[in-house]
C-alpha cells in the first residue's frame, strides 16, 4: 500500500503508520529502520469573518490537484500535475487550520510548503514564538516522566548588530529555516563574508528533570535561552514529535495516529490562542463603528506593545529599520516607508507581505507599538513576536491591549484543557 493506491482515510493512515515505524526487533535487539520521516506542516487560513479558501484552490498555484478519498470530505491526497506523483496528504484538521502530511524529503516538502504560502495570500505558516513554546514545555514537564529525554532548540541571531552590505537586493534573501539547524545564513565557504554578531543556536537534549531544574538558572545568565525555536513532545513509548517554530512537525515516534493526535492538540491550543489574541486586540472596539452609507465598519484595534528587555543600541535600531524596510525579502516580510520622527523613533504604516494585511508600527529603541486593524489575522501578532524574539530581543515582553501575552497564552491553553496548573515562567529581571 502506498499513497497512490490508498483509497480511503484508513488506507492513508495505514501507509503513514507503516512509514512511522522507527524500529524493528531483530535477533540483536531493536534496530533503527532508516526511512523518510513523516512530516506535518500546520498551516493557517483566514479569520472566521472572511470566506475560507477551498483546499483545492490553495494547491492550484503550485500545480497540484487534490484527489478525494472515499467517504471523506476533510482529507485529500495531493497529486503533482507535473509528473502525476502523489506527494502527500492534506487534511482540514481544524476550521482554520489545514495540515499537510508528507514523507518527501525535507528539502522538497519545505519548498512546496513555502511556495504554497507565498502564492496564497490567504495562507500562512503557524508561528510559534518562544513564549508559546515555553508553555508547551511546561505542559511536557507536567505530563511526562522526568526520566524521559526532552529536546529543545534555541535560536537567536542578533541580526541587526552588523551592517549588511549587499551588492544588490537579491542577496538579502530570507532563508526560511525548516529544521536545517546547522545551515548558516550565508554560504559558509572561505570566500563569503561572514559578519560577526551575537548568535545562539544549539540543541539541548537532557532528561526532563534536569531541564526543569537547570534551564531557569541558565536563562538568568543567558537571555537567548528564552528563544526556543524547536521543542520535542516525547512520544508515549520512545522518540517524540519535534515541533518547529514555522509550524512543521517531524514524527520521530512509532505511531502516525499518535503523531496526528499531538498535532491536533497543539493546533487546538494555537487556535484558541489566536482567537483569544484577536478577541483581546479587537474587543475594545467591537462596538465602535463608523457608519458609512448604512454599513457599519469596525475600525480600530487595541495596541500590541513589544517592550525590549534592554533598549536597542542606536546601531541596532538603525539597522533594523534600514534592513527591514529597504529589502523586499526582509526577515519580517514587511512592506513600508518609514517616517522618521527623530533619532530613535519612526512610524511605518506597513503591510504584512505574508498575508497582505495592514499593520501600523511605531518603532523606538525601547519598544515596538503595533496597531492591528480589525480583520488583520492574529497570526500576524504571533509572527511578529516570534521574529522579534529570534532576531532582535529574545526576552521581549509582549502585551496585547494591556494584557500580558503570556497570560493570554495561558488562558488560551486553559480553554483547551492544556495547562490548568501551568505556572507562568519567571521573567528575567533587569
Amino acid at each position, binding site marked *: 500500500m502506498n499513497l497512490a493506491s490508498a483509497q480511503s482515510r484508513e488506507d492513508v493512515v495505514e501507509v503513514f503508520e507503516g512509514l512511522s515505524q522507527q524500529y524493528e526487533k531483530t535477533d540483536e535487539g531493536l534496530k533503527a529502520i532508516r526511512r523518510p520521516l513523516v512530516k506535518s506542516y500546520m498551516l493557517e487560513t483566514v479569520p472566521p469573518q472572511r470566506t475560507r479558501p477551498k483546499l483545492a484552490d490553495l494547491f492550484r*498555484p503550485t500545480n497540484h490537484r487534490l484527489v478525494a478519498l472515499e467517504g471523506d470530505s476533510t482529507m485529500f491526497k495531493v497529486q503533482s500535475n507535473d509528473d502525476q506523483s502523489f506527494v502527500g496528504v492534506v487534511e482540514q484538521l481544524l476550521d482554520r487550520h489545514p495540515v499537510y502530511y508528507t514523507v518527501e524529503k525535507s528539502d522538497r516538502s519545505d519548498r512546496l510548503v513555502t511556495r504554497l504560502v507565498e502564492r496564497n*495570500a490567504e495562507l500562512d505558516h503557524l508561528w510559534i514564538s518562544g513564549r508559546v513554546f515555553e508553555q508547551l514545555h511546561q505542559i511536557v514537564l507536567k505530563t511526562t516522566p522526568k526520566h524521559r529525554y526532552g529536546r529543545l532548540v534555541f535560536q537567536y541571531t542578533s541580526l541587526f548588530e552588523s551592517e549588511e552590505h549587499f551588492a544588490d537586493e537579491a542577496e538579502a534573501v530570507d532563508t526560511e529555516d525548516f529544521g536545517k539547524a546547522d545551515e548558516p545564513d550565508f554560504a559558509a565557504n572561505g570566500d563569503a563574508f561572514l559578519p560577526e554578531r551575537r548568535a545562539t543556536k544549539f540543541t539541548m537534549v537532557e532528561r526532563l528533570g534536569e531541564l526543569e531544574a537547570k534551564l531557569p538558572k541558565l536563562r538568568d545568565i543567558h537571555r537567548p535561552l528564552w528563544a526556543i525555536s524547536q521543542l520535542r513532545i516525547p512520544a508515549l513509548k520512545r522518540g517524540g514529535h519535534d515541533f518547529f517554530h514555522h509550524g512543521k512537525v517531524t514524527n520521530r515516534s512509532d505511531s502516525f495516529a499518535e503523531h496526528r493526535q499531538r498535532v491536533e492538540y497543539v493546533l487546538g491550543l494555537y487556535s484558541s490562542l489566536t482567537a483569544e489574541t484577536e478577541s483581546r486586540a479587537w474587543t*475594545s*472596539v467591537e*462596538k*465602535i*463603528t*463608523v*457608519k*458609512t*452609507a448604512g454599513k457599519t*465598519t469596525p*475600525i*480600530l484595534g*487595541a*495596541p500590541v*506593545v513589544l*517592550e525590549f528587555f534592554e533598549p536597542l543600541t542606536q546601531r541596532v535600531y538603525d539597522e533594523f529599520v534600514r534592513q527591514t*524596510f529597504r529589502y*523586499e525579502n526582509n526577515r519580517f516580510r514587511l*512592506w*513600508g*516607508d518609514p*517616517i*522618521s*520622527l*527623530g*533619532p*530613535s*523613533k519612526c*512610524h*511605518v*504604516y*506597513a*503591510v504584512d*507581505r505574508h498575508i*497582505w*494585511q*495592514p499593520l*501600523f*508600527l*511605531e518603532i*523606538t*529603541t525601547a*519598544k515596538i*507599538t503595533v*496597531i492591528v486593524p480589525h480583520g488583520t489575522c492574529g497570526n500576524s501578532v504571533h509572527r511578529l513576536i516570534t521574529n522579534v524574539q529570534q532576531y532582535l530581543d529574545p526576552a521581549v515582553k509582549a*502585551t496585547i*491591549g*494591556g494584557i500580558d501575552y503570556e497570560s493570554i497564552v495561558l488562558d488560551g491553553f486553559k480553554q483547551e484543557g492544556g495547562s490548568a496548573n501551568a505556572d507562568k515562567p519567571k521573567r528575567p529581571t533587569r
Partner: protein
Amino acid sequence: MPTSPSDLLGDSLFQLNLLLWMLQPPNRSNIRPLLSEAGYKLRSIEETLPLSPALLTRLSNAALTAKEDAAPDAILLNDNAEHLLVECKASMFGPQPSKDGRDGNQRQARSFLLQTPPVLRSALAGSAVKGTHLAYLTRHNDKHDQTQGVRALADELQQAKLPTVECCVWRLLEHEGGIGMVVPKSSEKWPTTVRAACKTRRGSKAIKLIPRDDFGNDIRPLYFIPWMPESEPEHNEYNSRAFGNRILGAAVVRIGRTEVGEDAVLNYEELLDEVTLGVFAKWRNKDAKKSLRERVRKLLADHLVRTGALRYDPDGSGQSIAVKLSEEKIKSGVIKAFRETISMDWDKPDPQGKLFPEDTGKGDAA
C-alpha cells in the same frame, strides 16, 4: 522632521488621534488612556446628527440658525448610556460670526448644544441616551476665556426656551516637555468621571497625557486616522506622508492579493474611504472631494509610471485604475515602487488647476 509639542497642539488631526489614544484600554504605550479610565468608549466618528423639523422650526421662530446636519468629530459613551460629543478645534471661537461673515462654528455649536438626551436619541435613531455632554478639545490659550463663546451661544438658546447640554473646553498645552491637559476649574462643567480622572498633585496645573521624549524625538503617536476634512490650515509633512503611505499601503494590499495574470483594480474612492475609516464618504464638499480623488489618482500614477506596468481605466469613468499583473516580476515591481518615499506635496491642491489629465487609455508599454 521632529515637531515640537507646542506645534502639535493646534493640529486638529493630532487632536483627534490623541482623543482616540485616550480612549484605548490601559496599555503599555506612553499615552494616558484618560477617557478609558473615565469609562468612555468610542461610538462613532463624524456621525451626522440631523435636527428634527420641530427643532428647526423653533430655531427659525427665534431667528437663530444652526447646522441642520452637524457631525461631531467623535461621539463617546459609557456603560450608562451617557454620551459625550467631542469636537476638535485649532482654536475656540466667539458667539458672533467672523468679520467676513462666516458663522460655521456658531451654527455648528448651536446644533451640538441642542443635543439633549431626547434630541440626541432621535438623531441616533432611537439609541438609548441617558445623558449628554459636549466637549471641545483645543489648544490652550490663556489670553482669553476659551469657554466664553460657547457659553454665550448656550445662553442665547436658553433665552429662546431651547434646552441645552452642559459644555466644557478641554485645553491642551505643552507640559513638562510633553503634552498635557489643563485641569478643570471647579466652575467648569466637565463630565463627572472625566473630572475625577483628572486629579493631579496639588499645585499642578495640568495632567500629563504624553510624556516628554528624552531623545529628541517627535512625541506624536501613530495615527489611527490619517486625514480629516479641512483638518489643517497649513501643510504638514507628517500628515501628508502618513496619509500618502496609508493610500499606497491600501493599494499594495489589493495588489498583493491579486493573482499574477489578473488585473488589480484600484478605485480611488474606495481607497480614500478605507484609509479614512469611512470619513471621506461622509464629506459633503464635492469639489474638495474631487480634488482629493484627483491627487490620489496622480499619487498612484506617479508611482506606477516607474514600473512600466500596463494600466488602464477599467470603466472609462476616471474613478479607478486597473494594473495588469501579467508576470510575477511586474507584480513585485509595482509593490516595490509603491514603497518609494512619496513627495511631501502630493496632497497639496494643484495651484495651476488640472495640469495632469486623467488616465483614460493605456499607460506606457511594459
